């Protein structure tokens, strides 16, 4: 069991990290779009915007606005100012991360821009936790966003183009999620609730099983999720039931089934405690979202809104949050390359 691992090193196994004084998540925020607000998790989000352009002129500006609001909301909920945050780690799906850059520029917080496609929330949280645990910051923000229209424009077709989407296609979530990660001791002294902690994480590597179909991203990302989850079990010496929930990002209906089968082959049965944000965020029948939700904010707002509530209410004690990303671009797809996947696993505990 993890408790028996000698706590003399912060490295756990081959790819994981364990924190001796686990950083706390002291505040989270979730800003969602209309479709997400109408979905099964609608009531869990802090803010739902009916207007997908949130009063802006372009989709990209709108996504920046979602992100700005997510950062401000997370600060507001913790009664913090932007000057209290030492670093912000964030990313999005757009080229050159323009949604992030324009979104958080006003906050004037030193920034690390990261790209992990839809796994960005996991990547940001791990890096944020590492910065805090390493003593490089007392408080950081991990943030990400995505926008349906912006993503369609970047990766697929103009919105009004008449095409048919296959059943395996997913729907990019419009929204932004943020988490304030703080030094546990420091935050506790300041009166924050430090019950939710990040004891460790497993950093993912690129895994590619040769899928080329960009209309079936779930299947493309499964091998990466499989690799990270398996690695997490091995690095920490635990079994699936160590976690109340193993939460993947956007494998969707198709991908979830494949993941469970794949892990079963290795002797890990996660069929009882697996959950996928892409599956949970929309009602497949009512909202015509085919394979489920995707995008950076799919995992981010589901985690910030729904998962964090379950953790705070002590319904779940420990979860493994594994957002998954597909590292392709329009160019790589056109040039006939495969879709490499990546998944980052964050252990989140409620004490």
């Amino acid at each position, binding site marked *: 069991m993890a408790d028996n691992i000698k706590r003399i090193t912060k490295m756990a196994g081959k790819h994981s990290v364990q924190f001796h004084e686990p950083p706390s998540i002291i505040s989270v925020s979730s800003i969602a779009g209309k479709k997400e607000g109408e979905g099964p998790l609608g009531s869990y989000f802090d803010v739902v915007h009916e207007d997908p352009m949130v009063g802006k002129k*372009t989709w990209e500006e709108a996504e920046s606005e979602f992100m700005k609001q997510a950062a401000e909301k997370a600060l507001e909920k913790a009664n913090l100012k932007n000057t209290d945050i030492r670093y912000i780690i964030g990313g999005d799906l757009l080229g050159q991360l323009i949604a992030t850059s324009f979104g958080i520029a006003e906050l004037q917080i030193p920034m690390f821009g990261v790209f992990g496609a839809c796994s960005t929330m996991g990547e940001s949280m791990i890096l944020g936790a590492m910065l805090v645990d390493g003593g490089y910051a007392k408080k950081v923000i991990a943030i990400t966003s995505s926008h349906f229209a912006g993503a369609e424009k970047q990766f697929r077709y*103009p*919105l009004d183009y*008449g*095409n048919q989407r*296959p059943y395996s296609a997913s729907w990019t979530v419009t929204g932004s999620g943020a988490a304030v990660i703080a030094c546990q001791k420091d935050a506790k002294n300041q009166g924050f609730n430090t019950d939710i902690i990040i004891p460790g994480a497993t950093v993912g590597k690129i895994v590619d099983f040769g*899928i080329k179909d960009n209309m079936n991203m779930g*299947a493309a990302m499964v091998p990466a999720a499989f690799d990270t989850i398996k690695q997490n079990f091995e690095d920490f010496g635990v079994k699936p039931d160590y976690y109340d929930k193993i939460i993947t990002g956007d494998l969707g209906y198709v991908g979830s*089934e494949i993941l469970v089968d794949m892990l079963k*082959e290795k002797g890990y049965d996660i069929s009882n405690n697996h959950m996928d944000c892409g599956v949970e965020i929309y009602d497949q029948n009512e909202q015509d979202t085919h394979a489920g939700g995707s995008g950076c904010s799919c995992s981010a707002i589901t985690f910030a809104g729904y998962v964090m509530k379950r953790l705070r209410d002590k319904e779940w004690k420990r979860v493994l949050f594994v957002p998954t990303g597909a590292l392709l671009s329009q160019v790589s797809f056109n040039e006939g390359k495969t879709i490499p996947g990546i998944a980052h696993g964050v252990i989140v505990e409620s004490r």
Partner: protein
Amino acid sequence: MANQQKKSTMSDVVREKDVEKRNESYKQYVEQTTPKFSCFKNCVNAFIVGGLICTLGQFLVNLYMSMGADKETAKLYNILTLVFLSILLTGIGIYQKLAKFGGAGTLVPITGFANSVAAPAVEYKQEGQVFGIGCKIFTISGPVILYGIFSSWVLGLVYYIYTLIK
């Protein structure tokens, strides 16, 4: 080939050491587990929608002829009308809904081409008249224009050679 008929199991995928074989196995496994649309149902929908559009076209030709136009002019006006209707419906957001149901039924007639030009025009307006609309308006229809003209040229050449030989 016999290999392609055999069903792939997850066990095959996970135990396969050779990367290429594993990928092939995985691709097949995904193929098996991914739900697909009923091809038959798609064809029926496309037939109905495409048929209705073409019927509308014929009605328009008859209408214009009854208004005094000769056959060629009536056909021209018919095309103009269908293109106009596609662009209008694209602009107000209805075309996409029709196309989702109709598939090839909306894509194959001239309506598909009109929509493929109108949709990017709407999308890229924000990037300016020159670099936005100007550069990107033909992103989807580009291949149709290029290869349509090119194949006409090839056939023209073939026909020319044929007349020379005759």
